[in-house]
């Protein structure tokens, strides 16, 4: 914790990045289960961990999802640790119990946690063993969502990376497009329609909504990242012969256009057709975003690190809503994946990577920004000190990508400021 923050050059980009090490006020990768288990409708996520893991997922983002959840925790107890019980036999028993209860499950993820990593429980072998037992009904995979290895959205990266070896080979090497990263179903459908109109295709999405729909991948595959935090998945896809189409992320009118254009260009769509197809959406997005420009223009924003969406969001807010960026914190900055975004972000913007939460709070208090984007643990304490905040987790749980959601995205940032204005009679109260 006492390690000082260091300022480092960032390669050819020559951008100063503040790198910090210390207490991190972020979730671990297990949290991704909260949305992944809804996205993949026949998958179950079994965390092999402690009561803390179970409590985390239950409390993450203050959510309690009381529909029958497609996740659970195999809680390690002292008998497992003392070697009184064989952890693998115990796991087999728990999986048996689980699958008996949920015969509709077709894919089971064994999700590693901090305790399972530290006691070196080999979940990949367990997954192989259980696959043998349960195939063809249930495919068993594993990944780690542990906090010692993954930060928040990196859990999704680890999960999708575990899926890559399972993806079938396409029958031909004809070009096809793969969109990678969880999107709300409504956004996925919108993109599907746009690609169809553009004449780009066939188009697949990863993750698919169910196991039968696992998309094929091969040397003909070009892929677009829909989310910025998928470095490992990207690496494995390249290993399968897929080629990345570098692009900014589909946030805001500009980002969405550039993202679609990357695919259109690769599939040889002519410029006039591209403009004709995208013009209505672009116009709607620009109109919807403009509604919030008066509220947000000139406002000073401070991002605490959370989901790795910070850089694309900052780009959108800067270029489409004229905000001023005080500091853009992100847990990790994958320079090659982020290059198209960084190219759109002026070099003067202060970026920070990693976190020393106390130092960062000091900087935040000193700067006293108009809006702080931060996690739920920090929001109310900052509000109590007179700052407006936007919970960053909402940006992960809300459809914000694409033209039709650009206005919603802008509104998320405007709402705390508009709310403060509405309830100004309370300003002088405690």
């Amino acid at each position: 914790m006492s390690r000082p923050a260091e300022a480092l050059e960032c390669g050819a980009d020559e951008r100063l990045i503040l790198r910090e090490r210390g207490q991190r006020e972020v979730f671990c990768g297990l949290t991704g289960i909260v949305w992944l288990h809804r996205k993949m409708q026949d998958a179950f996520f079994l965390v092999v961990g402690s009561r803390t893991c179970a409590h985390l997922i239950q409390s993450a983002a203050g959510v309690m999802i009381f529909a029958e959840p497609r996740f659970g925790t195999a809680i390690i107890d002292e008998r497992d640790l003392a070697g009184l019980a064989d952890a693998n036999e115990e796991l087999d028993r728990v999986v048996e119990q689980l699958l008996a209860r949920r015969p509709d499950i077709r894919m089971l993820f064994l999700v590693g946690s901090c305790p399972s990593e530290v006691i070196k429980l080999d979940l990949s072998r367990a997954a192989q063993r259980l696959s043998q037992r349960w195939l063809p009904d249930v495919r068993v995979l594993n990944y780690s969502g542990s906090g010692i290895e993954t930060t928040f959205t990196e859990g999704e990266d680890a999960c999708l990376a575990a899926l890559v070896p399972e993806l079938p080979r396409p029958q031909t090497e004809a070009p096809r497009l793969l969109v990678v990263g969880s999107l709300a179903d409504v956004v996925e459908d919108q993109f599907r329609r746009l690609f169809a109109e553009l004449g780009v295709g066939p188009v697949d999405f990863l993750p698919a909504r169910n196991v039968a729909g696992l998309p094929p991948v091969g040397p003909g595959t070009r892929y677009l990242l829909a989310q910025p935090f998928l470095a490992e998945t990207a690496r494995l896809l390249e290993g399968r012969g897929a080629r990345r189409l570098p692009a900014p992320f589909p946030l805001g009118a500009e980002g969405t256009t550039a993202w679609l254009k990357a695919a259109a260009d690769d599939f040889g769509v002519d410029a006039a057709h591209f403009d004709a197809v995208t013009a209505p959406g672009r116009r709607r997005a620009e109109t919807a975003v403009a509604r919030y420009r008066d509220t947000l223009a000139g406002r000073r924003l401070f991002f605490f690190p959370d989901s790795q969406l910070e850089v694309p969001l900052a780009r959108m807010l800067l270029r489409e809503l004229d905000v001023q960026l005080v500091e853009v914190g992100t847990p990790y900055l994958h320079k090659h994946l982020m290059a198209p975004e960084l190219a759109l972000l002026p070099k003067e913007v202060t970026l920070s990577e990693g976190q020393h939460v106390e130092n960062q709070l000091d900087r935040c208090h000193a700067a006293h920004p108009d809006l702080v984007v931060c996690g739920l643990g920090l929001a109310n304490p900052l509000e109590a000190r007179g700052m407006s905040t936007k919970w960053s987790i909402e940006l992960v749980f809300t459809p914000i990508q694409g033209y039709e959601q650009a206005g919603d995205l802008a509104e998320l940032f405007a709402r705390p400021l508009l709310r403060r204005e509405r309830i100004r009679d309370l300003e002088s109260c405690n």
Partner: protein
Amino acid sequence: MQLTVWTYEGPPHVGAMRVATSMRDVHYVLHAPQGDTYADLLFTMIERRDHRPPVTYTTFQARDLGSDTATLFKNAAKDAYERFRPKAMLVGASCTAELIQDDPGGLAEALALPIPTVPLELPSYQKKENWGAGETFYQIVRHLADVDPPPDPEAGSRRPRCNLLGPTALGFRNRDDVVEVTQLLARLGVDVHVTAPLGAGPEDIARLGEADFNVVLYPETARSAAGWLKRRFGQPAVETVPIGIGATRDFVREVAELAGVDPAPVLDDPRSRMPWYSKSVDSTYLTGKRVFVFGDGSHALAAARIAQREMGFEVVGLGTYTRELAREVRAAAADYGVEPLITDDYLEVERAIEAAQPELVLGTQMERHIAKRFGIGCAVISAPVHVQDFPARYSPQMGFEGANVIFDSWVHPLTMGLEEHLLGMFRDDFEFADDAAPSHLGSHGGGATRRSEPSLAVVAATGEAPTEAAAAPVATAPAEVADAAGSRWEEEAERELKKIPFFVRGKARRNTEAFARERGVARITVETLYDAKAHFGR
């Protein structure tokens, strides 16, 4: 390994956080990996606290494991001391750090900080949150209260005084219970010397020995600390939890006895409306309502007593997830003639509720959702807490006002007396369909949505959490035509069955089928239905 879908309690270090967050000038340095900071939001979001919990997490990563996590801990503790200048420090490990065995207590001692340091050993793989809170409070008291009280020149002439022990951050209605009990004691002529841990600083803990006796408001957190104080200072403890009229009056008598004051003026409080409300004729419809009780040990025990002896309900199930109070709950269950349910398995509780077919569930937020699924009314009586359990208004559970609050919140989910009669008499009225909610619960557009489960209720803590205090009735779908033994329901009997209120229909069906089976009746007619009704009673 245990398969867990939902958990009633967090790990023990979350209990320690509840104690640390309750107090002033205390800082907790927790050896923990990234991600364990999630626990902060329990306090800042569920309880809407305006400060971060006073906790520093060392945030070790995989790459630190091979090198020096111990140094990481020492630096974190040193930095936390310099930054926050606490008057006492708690040090300990979360579940993962427990496995790497860095010994936070020893490391902190080596730092020789100029403040008391309390090492916490909280075995994460055996124990849970409430135990962690109790153990932490006990350790704090042992380390900080072990000082001889100064001479008391006013001894004998001053008002009697006691400590209030056990309230914590994130406790179910603890904030208001403390106010209510403090006022109750004041009316008795008893002063509260120290309330702890909620609102206390280390210097207050050091004054605990000066009180005449202790009041254990929440045995889950305060029982072991009170035991130590009794051994160290000879302070007796009042252990009756004053939830409900009977328990409050018992509490008043016990306190009066210890303090040597007259309980009479306090036993009947003019603002205590619950007894009259329960006695008044409109409450007749509450008689014998079947209730299922589940919660932490002390709240479940209190709720069962109120339900059976003050509301006139019938307790058809009683359970707790607090193993530390299992003995007491078993004894109470025996009194009510029900099987005790001691479990922290949510699915087991769900099965027990389904089997008991209650008309009202008194439980936690978990049971609220079970009840909603079964279409049974529910009132929340215990932690684990939800943002709704921190109402803006004054809303204690303890004392006479607490009893008023409980009466209101338990009656609300039930169909009111006369309305219930009308629903029963004119069941065929098309507007009284099974899906029609009692009017006071707001039935607009309910019929269609009520049947559907919340498919994706990603509800942010302060956002639009499901607001129903109770679920409206939902018909249980007509089951198979023939029961296991082969008795067949005639169509007319089946229609008659549907005229029975939904919440007892399943029971009526089972009773009738059992009755038919016993007597070898192959076809269940309307006659059989009423024969069975006469046989079994209500």
